[in-house]
């Protein structure tokens, strides 16, 4: 029986300290210990991407990350994308362009798209498809998601 570890990490800019099993999934820490329910579990095998979060600026499947590997890490979830009441340009674009239908893939999709636009500010369809290929959506056929990411990228351009 492993002793719980004291885990210190930053979640959405806030320092958090938890006592957890070292092999507990990051997904469960977020949902059960921190009650950040935006991150979803769609498969538990790193396939659907609904549990995507950023760890140290990189998109990961939080269902495949054990607690012991996020000691000291910076984690961003969907709850960390908006600035207070103000939606991020991606969130606003998903709303305007109907990029979210049932909404269950949306948190992970937004996190992956946020990561994509940081690496590649003006992606073409191919780059978006590649960047979001790990996030399955069953409602949209992806077209409206592509539209939303293009729109957000355009807005980012204008803002610069």
């Amino acid at each position, binding site marked *: *029986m492993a002793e719980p570890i004291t885990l210190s990490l930053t979640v959405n800019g806030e320092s958090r300290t938890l006592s957890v099993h*070292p092999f507990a999934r990051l997904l469960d820490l977020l949902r059960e210990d921190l009650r950040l329910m935006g991150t979803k579990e769609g498969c*538990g*095998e790193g396939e659907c991407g609904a549990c*995507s979060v950023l760890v140290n600026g990189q998109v990961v499947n939080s269902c*495949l990350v054990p607690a*012991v590997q996020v000691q000291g890490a910076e984690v961003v979830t969907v709850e960390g994308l908006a600035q207070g009441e103000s939606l991020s340009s991606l969130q606003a674009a998903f709303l305007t362009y109907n990029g979210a239908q049932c909404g269950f893939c949306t948190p992970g999709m937004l996190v*992956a798209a946020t*990561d994509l636009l940081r690496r590649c500010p003006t992606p073409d369809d191919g780059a978006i498809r590649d960047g979001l290929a*790990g996030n399955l959506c069953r409602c949209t056929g992806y077209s409206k998601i592509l539209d939303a990411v293009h729109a957000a990228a355009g807005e980012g351009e204008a803002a610069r």
Partner: protein
Amino acid sequence: MRGQLHNVEVRVPASLSDALALLAREPGVWTPLAGGTDLMVVHNAGHLKATRFLDLSRFEELRGIREEAGALTFGALSTFTDLRDSVAVHRHFPNLVKSARATGALAIQNRGTLGGNIANASPAADTPPSLLAYGAEVELLSVRGSRRVAYDRFHLGYKVMDLAPDELVAAIHVPLPTGRGFHYFRKVGTRQAQAISKVCLAAWARIEGGVVADLRIGLGSVAPAPIRARHAEAALLGQALAALPIEAAREALLADISPIDDIRATARYRSVVTRNVLGHMLRELANL
């Protein structure tokens, strides 16, 4: 989530030598944990037999891609994203870039490691065919020292490796190709992204005076482990590009592979498609 925690123990050794010492003291007890992208999947499904894990992820000495002595050395913890982002890998080993891009999707590529891809020993892994084509060597480390194994002699059978219970995969050395090279990689997966391969073929050839002077072909998903296509290679070595014996090579390939039926493809499909992909590769080679 069906994976239990009550019986699971995780060690985070302070140093690599501590890790090796633990493996030497209790060989076969501790399962090395790197990016977790294979291991956690099995754990979550409740199918993982291992309960004791050794976290390697913090060892900086197992990271990084360096050029030394006519080879690129990949620390075992190099992620697929590291491979995709490396200029040297793009320049010398385009097949490895393609392998890395074909492994899962970005979230997996950010965590999964080259060492893990090798040591997990899945016959369907996407980097092994490229490593076989490039003549890689695996560096293994234990308290007894380090040793190198040619990668094409590392996999001995289904999930059986030339890897002692006290050893870790520390690095992968890939010699820089010289001369006029031909690089080919093709994965036939269950879909265009986030897919497990049904057939994977990687090849590298050196061309001299219009003749195949050197050739290695690596295959995935058509045998219990990643394999070299030695019969097909033999049929092609020394042959002129203008007159490649494509049909003979396709026939010879049958002696290399031993595909099975599984939920992703039939053995028949794998057999036909592997030969077709070889044919496609040879048509490209002929047009070089």
